[in-house]
């Protein structure tokens, strides 16, 4: 909301020496956020209002004329090249000695043999607009000789305020002035509203058929207006408030809304069929063309101001084109109503129609403001458009609003704010806002109907705090309580570290994906990840589905990087995924576990001078798992070859801890990789984080042996037997003397797959003998051969 300081000064005596910055601080300190302010200065000095009393031809030129201009103090002969005015025109005159722009001083000077004593100015010359086709022709009712700057409302400061939704009253000069006056402890002045004695009785009959939507409806009528332009000062004030000037009648209505906070609407009475106004719910299928020229299809949830036949306006939102005032309008009906805020909110939302009026009604306009505003509108219409006021006013008032009381214990003010504020300071603050207070130990506070936000003690304490000044409240720290991270939270930080150590950057991707993106993963029918939760109102197709896997976002990011010439990328992300299944958690919300996803393309290690770059493959994926297992201290971890939906059928693994599945790692299915535009092998993995960060319990110390190790190698023809099985059997066969058992070679001869393993053993209490080693060797061979392998050369 743009607020003019000049306008505000009409309501409150702003200290003359207050700088714009200080005023901005004062407004912000009251809770009215200042998004900025603009200082407007006249781009001229000494320009006055003059009247052209006579025009004569220039003796030596035909394109310019000699004007006799009355400037109040004297009559000046001024030469003018503009032809857009005649005798009697009221114009801005730069008299000798006045200055235009920064330093263009106007002097008496001869133009083709005739002395010109000043200059009649165009809007452009005065810095008031682009118009330089002709001079500015002013309202002929302006006082001759008056200071022109003052007439164009200069200088001024325009504050751009953001009014919070709890303050309907503050969307007006009056309301803001009331806050400032309370802060400074001075009174507020409101414009004096006097209306002439009325003429005929009111013609229009007002009926409220929808009392749940309309709390009060006030109306007045004026006959015989003349539609025209509003006065310059009013146009300027509206323009600076961001409202377009249209006509005297419409401008007055907007002006009063900005001034008092009550939107009003002016109907052409002749267009109200049956001279009736009925506030009712629309019938399904009724239509109304609103002032913006759009035909609105109405429903029974729309509240309308109708005449005897059809809707004339959307209540509190926008007027209708049919009953709009126009050049042919003679008689008008002025509406000042108080609408049910949720009703207006729903209507403006349904019709996607936000107006200055709806913004105020949504916030809850004081039901007792309508009559004041309608009177003010009537007063200003009579002043600017003429006409005769009809006697009395309509007032349909189904729910009279009365002030209410709130009991405030002064000690609760200190209890909540942490500072002792004397009761007289509390009382002064509240009374400054037009609240009445009675009592001492217990304040009975009467709240006027313009502050619907004040219904409880806490609301009043906030008012006291605002006026006392947040800056004057001390800073204290509550005494400490035991805090800190849980073991799971600490482990989560470690898990992130492990993934970074594995060469992956941490990513953050959106929690949505599109249907087509999910399809790109080529998941099997029945995969639970295909059953995502739909977003009902997505802004884009990529946001239409909640993610069931972190991989889509990561693969999208891989593609982004590769598209930017970065070929080697490893990313991981830890975040929630959402499943559309029937096992809701925490009451009713869907199952939404935290998962770790990772994906890499290209190579995880940069090329080195002495080793070729190795592209990622399935073993890098399992290595990530191995690193997680070792660093997180997971016990009983296992990798099982498996065909995982979305993964390369021969290069995927299910991983588990303590027999419970944790997720999968492996190579992305080439079909999916191609769909994401990724060439070469892509590794991925997705793991359940809860199981990875679960506390593992204390580990037990093992004294390192001081005796030397012994080693032996064995080769087996294994066929399809997984290496993990071979190693497991070997380890079991040796028991606690196995220091390490690993595969150091895999080879195929004559179609027969073989694995070479190296066993390292060490005893805790002695150097192992050749006999013991031989026995261990035999035990390993036996155990592995039991799985169907056979010792090579054995």
């Amino acid at each position, binding site marked *: 909301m743009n607020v003019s300081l000049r306008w505000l000064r009409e309501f409150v005596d702003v200290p003359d020496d207050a700088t714009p910055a200080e005023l901005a601080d004062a407004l912000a300190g009251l809770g009215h956020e200042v998004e900025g302010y603009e200082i407007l200065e006249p781009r001229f000095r000494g320009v006055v209002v003059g009247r052209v009393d006579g025009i004569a031809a220039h003796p030596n030129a035909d394109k310019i004329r000699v004007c006799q201009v009355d400037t109040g103090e004297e009559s000046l002969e001024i030469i003018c090249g503009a032809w857009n005015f005649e005798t009697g025109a009221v114009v801005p005159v730069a008299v000798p000695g006045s200055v235009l722009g920064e330093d263009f001083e106007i002097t008496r000077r001869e133009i083709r043999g005739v002395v010109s004593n000043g200059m009649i100015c165009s809007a452009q010359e005065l810095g008031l607009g682009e118009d330089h086709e002709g001079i500015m022709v002013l309202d002929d009712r302006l006082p001759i000789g008056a200071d022109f700057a003052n007439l164009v409302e200069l200088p001024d400061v325009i504050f751009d305020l953001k009014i919070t939704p709890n303050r309907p009253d503050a969307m007006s000069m009056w309301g803001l002035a009331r806050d400032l006056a309370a802060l400074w402890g001075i009174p507020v002045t409101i414009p004096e509203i006097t209306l002439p004695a009325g003429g005929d009785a009111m013609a229009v009959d007002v009926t409220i058929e929808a009392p749940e939507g309309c709390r009060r409806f006030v109306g007045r009528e004026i006959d015989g207006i003349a539609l025209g332009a509003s006065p310059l000062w009013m146009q300027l004030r509206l323009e600076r408030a961001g409202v377009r000037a249209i006509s005297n009648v419409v401008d007055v209505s907007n002006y009063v809304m900005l001034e008092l906070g009550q939107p009003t609407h002016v109907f052409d009475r002749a267009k109200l069929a049956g001279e009736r106004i009925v506030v009712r719910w629309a019938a399904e299928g009724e239509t109304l063309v609103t002032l913006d020229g759009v035909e609105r299809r109405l429903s029974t949830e729309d509240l309308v101001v109708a005449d005897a036949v059809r809707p004339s306006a959307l209540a509190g939102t926008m007027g209708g084109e049919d009953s709009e005032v126009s050049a042919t309008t003679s008689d008008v009906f002025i509406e000042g109503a108080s609408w049910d805020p949720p009703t207006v909110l729903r209507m403006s939302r349904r019709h996607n129609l936000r107006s200055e009026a709806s913004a105020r009604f949504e916030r809850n306009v004081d039901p007792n403001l309508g009559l004041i505003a309608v009177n003010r509108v009537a007063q200003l219409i009579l002043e600017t458009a003429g006409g005769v006021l009809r006697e009395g006013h309509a007032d349909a008032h189904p729910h009279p609003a009365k002030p209410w009381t709130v009991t405030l214990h002064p000690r609760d003010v200190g209890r909540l704010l942490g500072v002792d504020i004397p009761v007289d300071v509390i009382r002064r603050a509240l009374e400054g806002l037009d609240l009445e207070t009675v009592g001492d130990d217990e304040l009975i506070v009467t709240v006027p109907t313009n502050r619907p936000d004040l219904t409880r003690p806490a609301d009043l*304490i906030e008012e006291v705090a605002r006026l006392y000044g947040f800056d004057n409240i001390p800073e204290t720290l509550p005494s400490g309580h035991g805090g800190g991270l849980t073991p799971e939270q600490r482990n989560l930080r470690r898990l992130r570290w492990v993934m970074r150590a594995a060469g992956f950057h941490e990513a953050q991707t959106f929690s949505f994906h599109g249907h087509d993106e999910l399809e790109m993963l080529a998941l099997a029918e029945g995969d639970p990840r295909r059953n995502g939760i739909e977003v009902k109102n997505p802004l884009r197709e990529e946001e239409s589905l909640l993610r069931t896997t972190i991989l889509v976002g990561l693969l999208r990011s891989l593609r982004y990087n590769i598209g930017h010439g970065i070929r080697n990328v490893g990313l991981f992300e830890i975040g929630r995924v959402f499943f559309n299944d029937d096992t809701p958690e925490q009451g009713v919300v869907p199952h939404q576990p935290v998962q770790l996803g990772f994906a890499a393309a290209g190579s995880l290690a940069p090329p080195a001078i002495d080793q070729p770059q190795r592209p990622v493959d399935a073993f890098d994926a399992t290595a990530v798992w191995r690193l997680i297992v070792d660093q997180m201290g997971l016990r009983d971890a296992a990798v099982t070859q498996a065909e995982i939906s979305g993964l390369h059928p021969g290069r995927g693994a299910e991983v588990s801890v303590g027999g419970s599945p944790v997720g999968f790692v492996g190579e992305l299915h080439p079909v999916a990789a191609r769909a994401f535009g990724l060439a070469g092998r892509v590794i991925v993995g997705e793991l359940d984080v809860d199981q990875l960060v679960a506390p593992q319990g204390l580990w037990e110390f093992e004294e390192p042996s001081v005796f030397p190790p012994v080693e032996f190698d064995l080769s087996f023809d294994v066929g399809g037997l997984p290496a993990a099985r071979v190693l497991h059997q070997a380890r079991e066969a040796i028991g606690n003397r196995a220091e390490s058992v690993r595969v150091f070679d895999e080879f195929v001869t004559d179609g027969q797959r073989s694995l070479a393993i190296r066993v390292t053993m060490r005893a805790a209490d002695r150097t192992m003998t050749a006999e013991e080693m031989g026995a261990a060797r035999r035990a390993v061979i036996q155990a592995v051969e039991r799985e169907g392998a056979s010792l090579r050369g054995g």
Partner: protein
Amino acid sequence: MNDLIDQLEELRKAAPDRITAASDLSDLQRAESELIGKRSPVAAMRRTLGTLDDDSRPRVGSAINDVTSDIAGQIARRRAELERLAEDELLRADRVDVTLERVTDPVGMQHILTTTIDEVVDIFTALGYRVADGPEVETAYYNFDALNTPPDHPARAESDTLYVDYGEPADEMLLRTQTSPMQARYMETHDPPVYVVVPGRVFRSDTLDPTHSPVFHQVEGLAVDEHITFADLKGTLAHFAREFFGPGLRSKLIPHFFPFTEPSAEMHVSCFACDGSGCRVCSNTGWIELVGCGMVDPNVLEAVGYDPQTLTGFAFGIGVERLALVRHGINHIRHFFDNDVRVLRQFT
């Protein structure tokens, strides 16, 4: 006998030249054989000792031993010297250009949003706060109703909030628009006093622009106890701001409005980039809006069964992206979500 002694002296005098002349270890080996080996003159002399008389034998024997050990010592020193020279030569040949790099195990970077969240969380855990986490798909009850938000509040509109198709229509399942639903969830499951921060992901129906994103992060804070005041809120947030941005930072609270706090405020901090004199970071205002906060509305306490007569509390919500944007001068919020490796690598 004196002939023998003289011969020995001759040998001793001649030895250094021969030893020094040995330019490598094998030549030194030969020199050793020549000078004190089995076929050397010294060895020959030792073999004649038995022919000497009893008077001469000890003297000559001792002189032989003297000369032998003297020469052996010289050879040992020369050997050590030659070995050192040989190793030096070897090492010279082994030189590499150490400005060539081999980074075999590059370590990834932590996302700046995670780092920022961890920093914020650590400041509050040091003040005695616990850390909680909550669901991102929420019910309208926890996201709005329990937070004193009226049924027709504009924030509930589809233009602000993303709704999802799950469960019963009455649950109005949505993507939480703030971390504040955890206020109610945490108080429902924990007895007072409550000191907790809740970092997490939140969602709005926004299109991506330099400062808005449909997905972003907040850290919610909640303190409810028997004596919590607005002054405590001020002190806590001022402490946070100084810890996060530096000790010279000034902060102030400006009145604001949120349905679930009363009084409500917004914390502004003096611009750390210009110290309040006005610059691009603070849009020339000298101040940066950072945190929405306030005293927990009595209705919120009542909704979870806490007694507002005995308990008061404060709550705040810190925008994580905003902290990171302003602190690092990042010009567009998309840089947090594009995951461009060239950007991720900067997240130290």
